[in-house]
C-alpha cells in the first residue's frame, strides 16, 4: 500500500527459501567456528596429526561455504525482505539501525578472522592461529546474538509496543530462549557438518575419531538442550500473548495436548504451521536415528549417510524457522504490523510524533475510514477515460483490493490458493466471512495497548480493512473466482436490500443502531443467525415469532451477520 508490490506469487516463499539456506549456513558459521578452534586445541594437546589435518581440511570447506554462500545469502535475505516486504523492512531498519550497525562490527571482525584463520594455517604460529579462531567464534556468536534480538522482536515485541524503546525491543520476552536455541542449533550443526567432511575421507581411524567426537560431544548434548530451549521459547511466546496452542490447533493448554494435536492434525489453527511442526519432529527424530547409524558404522560411514544427515538437519532447521514465522501470523511485526503492511494504530502510551506530522495513513482505523484504494500510492486501476459500468469497475476494484490486502500470502490458484477456499460461496456469505476474519478480543479499539486478536477458526488472518464499499467489492470478486458467474454488485445490493428492508420494517424499532437494544451479530454466521431467528420466543419471550418466507428469513440472516454493535458500521 505504502510501497509497490512486486508481482511475484507467494513472495513469502522466496524469503523462506533464501532465509533457510542462509540460516543453515550461518548457524554452521557460528557452531563450526567453535568446533574448529576446539578441535584444533584437542589435536594439538593430544599431538594428533591426523585430527589436525582433518581440522585444516574442514577449515577450507568451512571458509568456502561461510565466506561466500553464507555471507552472500545473508545479503540475499536483505535484498529479498526489502523487495517482498518493504514496509516491514523499513520499520525494522528505522527501529534497529543501530542493532544492525553493531552487528556489522561483529561481521567485519568475523569475516577478517575467518580469512586469516583460513590462510593462517600456512603462516601463523599455533597460539596466534587459535587466538584468531577464538576471535572468529566470539564475533560470529555476537553477530547471532544481535540478529536474534531483531528476529525475536518480530515475534514478541514486548514492552516496545508501549515504550518504543530500543532495549525493550531487543531484549524482548523470547530473546534469551531464542539465543540459547540458536546457539544449541549451531553447535549441533557443527557436528553434522564435521561428519560430512569426515565422510569424504578414506581413513577409517579418522572417521571413527570424528564420529565419536562430533556425535558424543556436539550433537547429543544439543539433542537435550535444543528441545528444552524450544519449549522455553514457546512458553515465553505464549506468555507474551502469542496464541501458540491455537496456532497448532490445540483445543486446550498444556504441552501434551499441543504435541498430540501436532501429531494428529487439527481442523483449526494454521495448517502450514502444523505441517512444519510435524516435519520438525520427524526430521529431528530421523537425525538422531542417522547419528546412531553413523556411530554403529563409525569406521565406514560414507557420503550418502552423511548427506542424509545433512538433509534431515536442513529440514529440521527449515521447519523450525517456518514454525517461528507462522507463530507470528497474521503479523509481520507482532502487535504492530500485519503481513499485508497494515499497521495497528499506536497505543496511546507510545511516543507520539511531533505536532504537524502527517498521521499514519496505513493503520487499521485510518484505512477503514479512507478506504484502501484511495490511500494506496500504487493502485493499478485504469485511470481516466469513460468510467466503466458499475459491475466492471467493482470487479476491477475487488481484484485490486485482493492484490493489496491478500496477495502477501495468497495466490489465486497456487500457494495458499484462494479459489478453493471461496468455491461456490455467495457474495453475501463471503462478505460476512471477510468481516469476521479478525477482530479485537472483546471488540476493543485497535489502539488499545496489548490488544489480542480473535480470528476466524483461529486461521490467524489479518482483519479486512477498508470501507464497506470495498468489502462488498472484494466479496463479489472472490465469489466470481469461486465460480459464481452471476455474482455482481447489483445482485449483491438487491439481496442485501431485501434483508435490510425487512429489518427496517420489522426489527429496527427495538434493535436499530439508535434503539434500546441495538443488534450485534458478535461474529455469528448467516447460517447460525438463520437458525436463531427461527426460534425468537425461545430466546426472549418478549419477542414475537418471525413471520417471513424462507427467502426473507435467509436475506434477513445475511443482513444481520453484517451488523456489529460496537463498530456501528454503516450498512447498506
Amino acid at each position, binding site marked *: 500500500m505504502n510501497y509497490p508490490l512486486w508481482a511475484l506469487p507467494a513472495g513469502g516463499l522466496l524469503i523462506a527459501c533464501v532465509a533457510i539456506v542462509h540460516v543453515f549456513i550461518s548457524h554452521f558459521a557460528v557452531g563450526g567456528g567453535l568446533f574448529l578452534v576446539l578441535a584444533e586445541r584437542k589435536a594439538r594437546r593430544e599431538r594428533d596429526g591426523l585430527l589436525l589435518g582433518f581440522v585444516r581440511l574442514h577449515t577450507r570447506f568451512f571458509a568456502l561455504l561461510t565466506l561466500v554462500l553464507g555471507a552472500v545469502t545473508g545479503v540475499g535475505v536483505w535484498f529479498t525482505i526489502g523487495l517482498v516486504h*518493504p514496509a516491514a523492512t523499513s520499520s525494522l531498519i528505522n527501529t534497529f539501525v543501530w542493532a544492525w550497525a553493531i552487528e556489522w562490527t561483529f561481521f567485519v571482525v568475523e569475516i577478517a578472522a575467518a580469512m586469516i584463520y583460513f590462510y593462517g594455517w600456512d603462516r601463523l604460529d599455533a597460539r596466534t592461529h587459535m587466538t584468531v579462531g577464538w576471535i572468529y567464534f566470539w564475533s560470529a556468536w555476537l553477530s547471532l546474538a544481535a540478529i536474534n534480538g531483531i528476529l525475536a522482536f518480530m515475534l514478541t515485541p514486548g514492552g516496545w509496543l508501549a515504550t518504543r524503546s530500543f532495549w525493550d525491543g531487543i531484549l524482548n520476552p523470547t530473546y534469551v530462549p531464542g539465543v540459547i536455541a540458536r546457539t544449541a542449533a549451531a553447535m549441533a550443526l557443527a557436528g553434522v557438518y564435521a561428519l560430512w567432511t569426515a565422510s569424504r575421507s578414506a581413513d577409517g581411524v579418522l572417521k571413527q575419531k570424528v564420529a565419536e567426537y562430533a556425535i558424543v560431544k556436539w550433537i547429543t548434548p544439543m539433542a537435550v538442550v535444543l528441545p528444552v530451549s524450544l519449549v522455553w521459547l514457546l512458553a515465553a511466546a505464549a506468555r507474551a500473548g502469542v496464541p501458540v496452542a491455537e496456532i497448532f490447533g490445540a483445543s486446550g493448554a498444556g504441552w501434551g495436548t499441543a504435541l498430540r494435536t501436532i501429531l494428529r492434525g487439527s481442523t483449526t489453527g494454521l495448517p502450514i504451521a502444523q505441517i512444519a511442526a510435524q516435519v520438525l519432529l520427524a526430521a529431528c527424530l530421523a537425525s538422531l536415528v542417522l547419528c546412531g547409524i553413523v556411530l554403529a558404522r563409525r569406521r565406514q560411514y560414507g557420503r550418502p549417510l552423511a548427506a542424509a544427515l545433512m538433509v534431515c538437519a536442513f529440514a529440521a532447521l527449515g521447519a523450525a524457522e517456518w514454525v517461528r514465522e507462522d507463530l507470528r501470523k497474521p503479523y509481520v511485526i507482532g502487535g504492530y504490523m500485519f503481513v499485508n503492511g497494515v499497521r495497528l494504530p499506536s497505543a496511546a502510551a507510545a511516543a507520539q510524533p511531533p505536532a504537524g506530522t502527517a498521521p499514519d495513513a496505513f493503520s487499521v482505523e485510518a484505512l477503514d475510514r479512507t478506504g484502501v484504494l484511495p490511500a494506496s500510492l500504487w493502485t493499478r486501476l485504469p485511470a481516466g477515460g469513460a468510467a466503466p459500468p458499475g459491475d466492471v469497475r467493482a470487479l476491477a476494484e475487488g481484484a485490486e483490493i485482493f492484490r493489496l490486502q491478500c496477495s502477501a500470502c495468497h495466490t489465486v490458484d497456487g500457494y495458499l490458493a484462494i479459489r478453493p477456499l471461496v468455491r461456490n460461496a455467495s457474495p453475501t456469505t463471503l462478505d460476512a466471512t471477510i468481516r469476521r476474519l479478525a477482530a479485537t478480543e472483546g471488540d476493543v479499539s485497535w489502539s488499545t495497548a496489548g490488544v489480542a486478536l480473535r480470528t476466524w477458526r483461529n486461521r490467524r488472518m489479518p482483519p479486512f480493512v477498508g470501507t464497506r464499499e470495498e468489502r462488498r467489492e472484494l466479496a463479489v470478486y472472490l465469489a466470481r473466482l469461486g465460480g459464481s458467474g452471476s455474482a455482481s454488485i447489483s445482485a449483491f445490493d438487491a439481496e442485501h436490500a431485501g434483508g435490510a428492508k425487512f429489518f427496517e420494517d420489522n426489527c429496527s424499532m427495538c434493535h436499530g443502531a439508535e434503539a434500546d437494544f441495538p443488534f450485534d451479530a458478535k461474529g455469528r454466521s448467516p447460517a447460525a443467525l438463520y437458525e436463531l431467528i427461527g426460534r425468537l420466543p425461545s430466546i426472549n419471550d418478549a419477542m414475537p415469532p418471525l413471520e417471513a418466507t424462507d427467502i426473507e428469513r435467509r436475506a434477513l440472516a445475511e443482513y444481520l451477520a453484517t451488523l456489529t454493535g460496537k463498530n456501528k458500521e454503516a450498512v447498506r
Partner: protein
Amino acid sequence: MTPAIPQIDPVPLPAPAALLWFLLLLTFTLHVLPMNLVLGGSLIGAVARWRARRGQLHDGELARWIGKAMPILISATVTMGVAALLFLQVVYGRLFFVSSVLMASLWLAVVPLLIVAYYSAYAVAFRGAGASAWLSWLVAAIVLAIAFIYTNNMSLMIRPGAFRAMYLASGSGFHLDTSDPSMLPRFLHVVTGAVAVASLGIAVLGVLKRRADPAFGGWAIQYGCAWFAGATLLNLVFGVWFLASLPSATLLQLLGRNLIGTSLVASGIVFALASMALMMGAGQLRDPSHVVLGAAAALVVALVFMIATRDFVRRSITGAAGFEAPRWVAPQWIPIALFAVLLVVAIALVGWMIAVFVRSGVKARDGKPAPAREGVSV
C-alpha cells in the same frame, strides 16, 4: 508525472539525520575503494591472463596477483557494502525500496550472480597460473553486469517522478532506468573510473614488488601508468557527458550557482587531474615509488570528493522532487555509543590480525617454520 514517494514511517529517526548521512558517505567510500579494485581489477586481470597465454611473462604474474587478491577484495566489497546498504535504507529507504521493487527481478539476480563470481574468483585464486582464461572473463563479465544493475538502481531511485508510470506499465520487476539520459554516462563513468583506480593499484603493487622482483615491479608501474592515463583521459569525456546529462537545475548548481556543489565537483576534477599528472610523470622517473604513492593518495581524495558530489546531486534532485528527511528524531544514544566503541574495537582487532598475519609472512620468508602446520602443543 507527480513524484510518488511513500509516507514516512510512524517511528522516529533513531539518530540525527546528519550522523546517518555521514555514516552513509563514510561506509560507501569504504565500499567503493575495494569495489573499484574488484571491477577494474577483474577486467585488467582478464586481459592480463589473455595476454599471458600469448607468452607475455609479466602479464602472467600480474594475472596471478590479481587472481589471488580477488576473493579478498570481493569479501571487503561485500562487507563494507552491507553497512552502506544499511545506512542507505535509513536515509533514502522510501526511494530505494521503490526503485528496487521496480527492478526486483534484476536486483535480486545480483545475489546468485555474485555467488557465481565469488566462487569463480576462488577457483582462479586456487588454480593460480593454471586457471583458465574464461573463468577470469566470467568473473569480469558478472562483476560488470552487477555494476550495471547497481547503476540502474542508484540512478532510478532519485527519479520518483518516473516510479508510478513504470509500475503501471509492469510490476514484474524487470525495469531498467534506460529512459534516464544520465544512466549510461554514469555507468561508463563508474566503470572507467574503476579501471583507473585498479590500474593505480597495479602501479602500487609494482612499487611494493620492486625490491623483490625489479623487472616485474618496474613493468607493473609502467603498465599501471599506461592503463591509468588511458582510463582517466577517457573518463574526462564520460564525466563531461554525465554532467551534461543531469537535470539543468542540478547542473547549474554544480557550475557556479551553488558554492558547495561547485567546490565539490571542481575539487574532484582537480585531484583526479593531479593524480593523472603524477602518474604520467612517474613513468619518466628512475624511482617513481613516492610519486606513485602520491598519485594514489590524490586519487583517493578525488574519489572522496566525487562521492560527495554524487551525494550532492542526489540530494538536489530528490529534494526538488519533494523528498524530505523525517522531522521526528529520537536518537538512541546508548546504542550509538555502543556502536562507536565496538567499531573502534573491531578496527583494533582487524588491525592486529592483519599485522600478525603480515609479520608471519615476513618471518616465513626469513626461513622460520610456520608452526600452525606442525602440530605444536599449546
